[in-house]
């Protein structure tokens, strides 16, 4: 049994004596006796070696695919070794929120650098220190849009299903309406949007690229939102921002997204990290921690948690958000990834993703899996075919390839990243050819 205690029996006895009690149990005398538990019904503890064996066994009950053609909110990208190595330093891992600036400049500076990189990617003025994940970032952005007489968020049915579900949960308890409009050929229907926007619209939320991988005409959507005096919120894939117009260039007031593609493993869905950035006009409504630059009493540059009076620990029930913990460690990894890749590397990754996707879409079309939508796409796309999706995906799975995500009986959402080789895609197409 491991217990991570470092107190010998003799020391325990000495300590109890100093406190003036006979046993450990005496310390719990405030707890009513009839409430006390006899014994937890849990297995006996394991040695370190047994724990390792047990956990390794569990991990082996999962299937690791060599080739992954699935995205839909979780992306398999190359993680540079320096990112893995340097981020695993225990000073980073075992620190907590940098409440004491004088001994936490490293964490604070890392967050400041992260914020700066998110501002650079999105083109916006202010970023927070991160929130839980992309879906929660969208929900927090929705709350930022609210005004006294504007309580409706307008979006389309082409955003990630998880994001929509989280938006609806957060809306339901606050009297917010989430209006989900039908997309047209996979992208936002601008005419419909224009018709639906009104004086009660708080914000418009779209994703770029959207769930089907299509590139939205974000600038036009932003213009329509602003004509109705609503806020424009863009959910973005950060890798795509290496190539696509920034949210600021599209007129967004708030940009959010999940930074998982920036160096974080898929890890069965988490931990990931939600990023949030906004214009300086919206800064005071931005939830969560924010690091700011200042000076110490000798005039040296220093970093601190700032604008704290927005937050729950001070504002309590009047805070805009209840968020306290963020995903600082994941944000550190994301900023390391961006430093390791640099502007050129990020663009190369984005180009490789989209190049492979276009190449693979061409291969699939030849096999009778035509694209469902006409619009331009980044690194994900939907195919439709006569052959049942299940049959295709099973055939790929047998060969160690995780195919796209089945959307319905005949439609599949595919994704490619720079982890793939041309041969992998050729092979996948070849396997599909044999399914008929």
């Amino acid at each position, binding site marked *: 049994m491991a217990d991570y205690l470092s107190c010998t029996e003799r020391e325990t006895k000495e300590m109890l004596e100093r406190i003036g009690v006979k046993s450990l149990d005496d310390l719990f005398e405030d707890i009513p006796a009839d409430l006390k538990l006899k014994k937890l019904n849990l297995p006996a503890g394991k040695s370190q070696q047994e724990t390792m064996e047990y956990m390794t066994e569990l991990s082996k009950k999962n299937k690791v695919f060599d080739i992954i053609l699935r995205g839909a909110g979780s992306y398999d990208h190359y993680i540079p070794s320096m990112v893995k190595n340097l981020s695993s330093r225990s000073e980073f891992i075992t620190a907590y929120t940098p409440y004491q600036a004088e001994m936490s400049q490293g964490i604070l500076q890392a967050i400041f650098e992260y914020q700066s990189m998110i501002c650079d990617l999105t083109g916006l003025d202010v970023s927070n220190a991160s929130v839980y994940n992309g879906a929660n970032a969208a929900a927090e952005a929705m709350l930022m849009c609210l005004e006294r007489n504007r309580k409706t968020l307008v979006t389309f049915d082409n955003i990630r299903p998880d994001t929509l579900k989280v938006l609806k949960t957060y809306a339901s308890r606050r009297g917010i309406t989430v209006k989900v409009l039908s997309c047209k050929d996979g992208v936002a229907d601008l005419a419909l949007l224009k018709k639906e926007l009104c004086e009660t619209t708080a914000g418009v939320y779209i994703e770029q690229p959207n769930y089907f991988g299509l590139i939205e005409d974000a600038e036009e959507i932003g213009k329509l939102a602003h004509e109705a005096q609503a806020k424009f919120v863009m959910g973005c894939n950060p890798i795509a921002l290496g190539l696509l117009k920034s949210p600021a260039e599209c007129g967004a007031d708030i940009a959010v997204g999940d930074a998982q593609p920036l160096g974080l493993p898929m890890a069965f869905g988490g931990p990931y990290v939600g990023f949030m950035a906004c214009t300086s006009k919206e800064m*005071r409504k931005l939830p969560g921690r924010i690091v700011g630059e200042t000076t110490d009493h000798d005039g040296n540059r220093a970093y601190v948690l700032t*604008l*704290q*009076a927005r937050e729950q620990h*001070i*504002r309590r029930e*009047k805070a805009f958000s209840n968020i306290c913990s963020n995903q600082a460690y994941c944000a550190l990894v994301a900023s390391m990834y961006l430093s390791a890749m640099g502007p050129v590397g990020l663009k190369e990754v984005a180009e490789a993703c989209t190049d492979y996707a276009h190449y693979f879409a061409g291969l699939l079309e030849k096999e009778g899996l035509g694209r469902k939508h006409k619009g331009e796409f980044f690194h994900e796309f939907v195919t439709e075919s006569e052959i049942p999706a299940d049959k295709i995906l099973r055939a790929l799975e047998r060969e160690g390839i995780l195919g796209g995500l089945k959307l319905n009986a005949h439609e599949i959402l595919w994704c490619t990243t720079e982890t793939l080789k041309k041969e992998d895609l050729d092979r996948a197409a070849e396997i599909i050819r044999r399914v008929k």
Partner: protein
Amino acid sequence: MKVLYRESHEWVAIDGKKAKVGISDHAQKELGDLVFINLPEVGAEVKAGETLCDVESVKAVSDLYAPVTGKVVAVNEELEGAPELINQDAMKAWICEIEVESVPDDLMDEEAYKKFIKG
């Protein structure tokens, strides 16, 4: 024009139908360095004794209460980028102007307020 105070340390300078509102020098000292003033909305109807807006110091938020009932007709936008004006001269740095509907009778004149803060 007369200046009156609330027990919650707001001052109000009433001039006919209009009244300017701020916080007292005593309150300013207690709050310490102010870093942000959440100004009320122009057009908002406020009731005496209800929350008017709030002011932030580094580690605290304090609500300000409306000393009179009426409608906010102007706010001191200068404070938006320079909350320190309140620390520099609290009696001069008005926060908003209210078109007065009614004045409650629990306000104190300067002498009574001075006595009140001495406790």
